[in-house]
């Protein structure tokens, strides 16, 4: 007799066996490729595992976690960052029940690293108790939100308003208010690390997306002046590397702004990132607009919808949904491009890494570790973005119309 356990082990091994056969040894050529590549892949796997666990020294990162996360943000004001993180995870929890799995997957992507950092014992992961408790509190934010959503489901509209409001509250909390004792002003020049990377990326996306849509619509305008201006703007921005734009905004923006106005370094970097990404976004959106059949516009016109309603209710939703992969691709490159702000002296994640390595003699030979860590952080976020884009695409049924 075969016991239940033996049977299940048996079925697992056969399914592994089948997978290997179908995917690795299905033809003579495949057998050859597998045999050649396998030892190499195996060696790579073993040696990188060995490096990560045994050879590498991670204290450049574990000792400086706070700086990697938030840069020079004053230590006395840490609670503000914690509150922002709490609000965000809390809203994620509240949004858990929303249709589709986007919010659920997003929550997992954020919670799994948080909770693992809390749970890994101090002998293996040498970070401060303070940070661990903050992480725990932020995870609690999620749990609270989740319980709340079990208790009462908020509508999509309410949640959308909450998310937008939370962005504004986050910004005020982080930046503070001049002359207001409870929330002293923290110059964005002191923001750094992952906080700055996120800030640049999120504001950059929120500004460049609508800019791209306006430019794309302008490019299709019947008014020669509007059309011409948009074409010239898009094409000249696309002809220039982002680095050049970063330098240009650094020098030119202060000259253009009226007397008395000033835009700090971070603001100028955002200006450069926004117009750069906006120009590319415009081309993606233009592709989407071209993919919507003229019959859609005609049907809308025939129903009496004016140009504004036709564009916003009929053409744009279809256009954008047809180019989600390209749009998310643009978001991802924007996210990665934020690392270029190092060049104009901002300390984003990469900038902090550089500063930590160069600023401390003890960490000078942990260069590789620091950059591997930064690469891993970037990978996690860009991968999540493209993963979420795939979920959204599937839930909108792109391609099956």
């Amino acid at each position, binding site marked *: 007799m075969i016991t239940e356990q033996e049977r299940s082990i048996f079925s697992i091994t056969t399914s592994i066996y089948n997978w290997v056969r179908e995917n690795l040894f299905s033809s003579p050529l495949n057998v050859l490729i597998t045999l050649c590549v396998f030892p190499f892949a195996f060696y790579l796997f073993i040696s990188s595992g060995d490096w990560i666990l045994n050879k590498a020294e991670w204290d450049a990162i574990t000792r400086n976690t706070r700086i990697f996360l938030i840069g020079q943000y004053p230590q006395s004001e840490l609670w503000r960052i914690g509150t922002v993180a709490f609000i965000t995870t809390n809203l994620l929890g509240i949004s858990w029940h929303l249709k589709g799995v986007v919010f659920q997957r997003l929550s997992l992507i954020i919670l799994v690293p948080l909770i693992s950092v809390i749970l890994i014992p101090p002998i293996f992961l040498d970070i401060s108790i303070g940070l661990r408790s903050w992480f725990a509190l932020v995870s609690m934010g999620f749990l609270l939100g989740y319980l709340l959503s079990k208790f009462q489901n908020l509508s999509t509209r309410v949640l959308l308003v909450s998310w937008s409001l939370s962005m504004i509250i986050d910004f005020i909390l982080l930046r503070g208010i001049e002359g207001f004792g409870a929330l002293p002003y923290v110059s964005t020049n002191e923001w750094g690390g992952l906080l700055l990377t996120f800030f640049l990326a999120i504001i950059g996306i929120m500004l460049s997306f609508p800019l791209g849509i306006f430019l794309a619509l302008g490019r299709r305008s019947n008014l020669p002046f509007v059309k011409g201006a948009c074409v010239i703007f898009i094409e000249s921005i696309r002809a220039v590397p982002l680095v050049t734009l970063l330098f240009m905004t650094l020098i030119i923006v202060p000259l253009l702004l009226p007397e008395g106005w000033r835009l700090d370094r971070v603001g100028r970097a955002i200006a450069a990132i926004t117009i750069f990404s906006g120009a590319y976004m415009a081309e993606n959106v233009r592709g989407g607009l071209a993919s919507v059949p003229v*019959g859609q516009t005609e049907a809308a016109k025939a*129903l*009496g919808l*004016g140009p504004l309603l036709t564009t916003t*209710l009929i053409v744009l939703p279809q256009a954008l949904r047809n180019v989600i992969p390209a749009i998310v691709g643009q978001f991802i490159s924007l996210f990665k491009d934020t690392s270029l702000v190092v060049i104009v002296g901002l300390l984003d994640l990469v900038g902090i890494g550089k500063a930590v390595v160069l600023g401390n003699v003890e960490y000078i030979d942990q260069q590789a570790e620091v950059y591997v860590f930064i690469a891993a952080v970037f990978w996690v976020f860009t991968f999540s973005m493209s993963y979420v884009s795939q979920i959204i695409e599937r839930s909108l049924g792109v391609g099956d119309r």
Partner: protein
Amino acid sequence: MSSKIDKNYHIISFEDVHKWFGNFHVLKGINITIDKGEVVVVFGPSGSGKSTFIRTINRLEEHQNGKITIDGIELTTDLKNIDAVRREVGMVFQSFNLFPHLTVRDNISLAPMKVRKWSRKEATRISDELLERVGISDQADKYPAQLSGGQQQRVAIARSLAMQPKIMLFDEPTSALDPEMIKEVLDVMKELASSGMTMVVVTHEMGFAREVADRLVMFDEGNIVESGSPEEIFENPKNDRTKLFLSQIL
């Protein structure tokens, strides 16, 4: 059939209407008046200007010479007039042109809500009523891509009717349909005709024309070459090209 027609009111009037696409003269002086409640079937060879003609009625195409008056409103470059006319004229296309990102119900209630400013409740009530009328009330929450061609075209008709138009235009509404679905669409159109709607229908469904039309209009090379009652056109066509064309399609 003719009792519903109000012969004293020309709801559509074309006076010597010309249109060019570049150098190409598509409409060469169209003169026609259509009475309120009348059902006019337009037919003729491909490329003769039927679609262009019907599309000038709600100004999807602009005419260059002559005068078009719809329910007392003259179509000029004046955008207010164009909006007013489009609110009174519904149109059904060969390729349905439903909005693929909206459910069937939202396809129908969108324009009443956004253009006529009805409440969602009122618009939903009307759209459910219309879906009932075209015989697909069980499909309200589906997306257009989930329906058959015949069902999609019936939704398109309901969508136009939701704006409570005085005139309905149909440009080859059954040409893109599989044969077994043509009847379900024509039945809806027949019901509409008998309710007193003014209709201009481009079609080669001559059975429908014989049964429903008050008048048939034959287009050829941008001209109306002949028009008359179904009996006159089918039994005793006067124009040689009408005779030839009918012999080819009947």
